[in-house]
């Protein structure tokens, strides 16, 4: 069995083993039953969702979400009393994650998936482990420190994203005169910013930090302004399995209560292996506190 953050996971395993099985009976959980029968827990992961879930230098996925999932796997082992549970990593994409969860290929998705109420008709989520939201990135010295500075300027937006809607709403609300250029994806959007097709690019702040860290001249760009939308990420689990969902919730709440979650966050984001350099925001800090439900 290959497993990324072995030490942390082992520590968690010991801690949880000390507590004993605090979860409900596995018998009424189709997912736990399936894991027990197969002797395998299948984790859906992304390949390029940096720094949440991606393939690093090795073959196995790494990242913030993958670390959290490591703790959940340990909890499943304890619950089922199977130390030799095998972990199988299954690559998923934004288009395949639902199909693979619906047909039971993956038991748990550890990626960067936004939790919303419509999607909850199709899947269930564990507590929010990351919060992103729409912000804008611009060249330093361009005189842009927020959306209000965009009057008479051009902003690029990725077609069909929440960011597009949020920024259009903000522009309308403030009565600004901003020209909007839609682009196909973030790479194209960033290119547009670099080639001066646009003055600012609007997207999820975490993606903007990522784009800046990967750009030719990271020091030339900055993420500015207030949050214009709210996009909470959560690990995704199959629907209609409250027992399995609760098991995951307990693990995540434990991590938040013990302060371990903030440490995992720091490991991946402050500045993190990809130098994304995104400090823990106040609202994510608050989210950790609020979701740290008592046992």
């Amino acid at each position, binding site marked *: 069995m290959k497993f990324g953050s072995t030490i942390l996971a082992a520590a968690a395993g010991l801690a949880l083993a000390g507590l004993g099985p605090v979860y409900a009976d596995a018998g009424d959980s189709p997912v736990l039953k399936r894991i027990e029968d197969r002797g395998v827990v299948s984790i859906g992961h992304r390949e390029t969702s940096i720094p949440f879930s991606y393939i690093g230098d090795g073959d196995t996925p790494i990242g913030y979400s993958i670390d959290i999932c490591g703790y959940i796997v340990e909890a499943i082992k304890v619950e089922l009393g199977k130390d030799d549970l095998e972990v199988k990593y299954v690559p998923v994409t934004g288009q395949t994650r639902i199909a693979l969860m619906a047909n039971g290929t993956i038991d748990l998705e550890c990626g960067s998936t936004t939790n919303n109420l419509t999607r909850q008709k199709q899947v269930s989520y564990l507590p929010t482990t990351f919060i992103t939201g729409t912000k804008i990135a611009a060249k330093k010295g361009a005189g842009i420190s927020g959306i209000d500075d965009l009057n008479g300027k051009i902003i690029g937006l990725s077609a069909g994203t929440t960011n597009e809607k949020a920024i259009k709403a903000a522009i309308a609300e403030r009565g600004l005169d901003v020209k909007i250029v839609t682009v196909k994806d973030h790479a194209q959007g960033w290119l547009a910013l670099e080639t001066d097709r646009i003055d600012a690019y609007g997207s999820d702040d975490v993606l903007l930090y990522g784009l800046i860290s990967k750009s030719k001249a990271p020091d030339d760009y900055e993420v500015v302004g207030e949050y214009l939308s709210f996009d909470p990420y959560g690990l995704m689990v199959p*629907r*209609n399995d409250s027992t399995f969902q609760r098991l995951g919730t307990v693990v995540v709440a434990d991590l938040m209560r013990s302060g371990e979650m903030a440490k995992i966050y720091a490991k991946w984001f402050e500045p993190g292996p990809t130098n994304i350099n995104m400090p823990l925001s106040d609202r994510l800090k608050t989210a950790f506190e609020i979701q740290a439900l008592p046992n």
Partner: protein
Amino acid sequence: MNYNWDWSILVSEPYMGWLLQGFGWTIAVSSAAWLIAFTLGSTLGIMRTTESRLLRWIGTGYVELFRNVPLLVQFFLWFFVFPEILPDDASRWVKREMPLPAFTTAVVALGLYTASRVCEQVRSGIEAIGPGQRAAGKAMGFSEPQIYRYVLLPVGYRIIIPPLTSEFLTVFKNSSLALTIGVIELTAATRQIEEYTFQGFEAFTAATVIYSVITFAVMGAMRVVERRTRVPGTVALGAK
């Protein structure tokens, strides 16, 4: 399978609005591109059948160039490369001032590409008439434009109604490529709905039904037109 079917998503807001808007863009891109394709394609097709070697050569060159580069690559050429090779002022205008940049680019790219295909159909239609009619026109003292206007084109276009119909439907389907440069047409809209709601089956089914229904409706309508306009004694045909 643990999939929660929810067809109501397609008629609930905002998703129904996205579908309708996407459909609107699909129609807008296809009709505007068809306008370019038909006009330019007809001109080129006529050029390829004239007696001027230069005009024929231009027509052939155009067709060979535009038909042999994938449409998607042509989209990228117009969107990314074209503005960069323009003089600075024009480049700046295309990149920053041009209204509806993605839509305009999509219409131009799709229109110019399809023109090469329309050209071949028009040419084959005119050629199918045979040299006798042209000679007859000449003998009547018609000028070359008159021969085209009164003899060759009225018959030629009627012969190629079926292949032109399928070219139009191809434009309609190819307009989905506009999503690669950021036009949220029908296919992109359904993908967006999938992304938002995780109801992929329902969204893709909606697009599938819309495309099929339009295609079959156009085909049915054109079959009637074709029957009404058939030139007695000819068979409908088109370029391979």
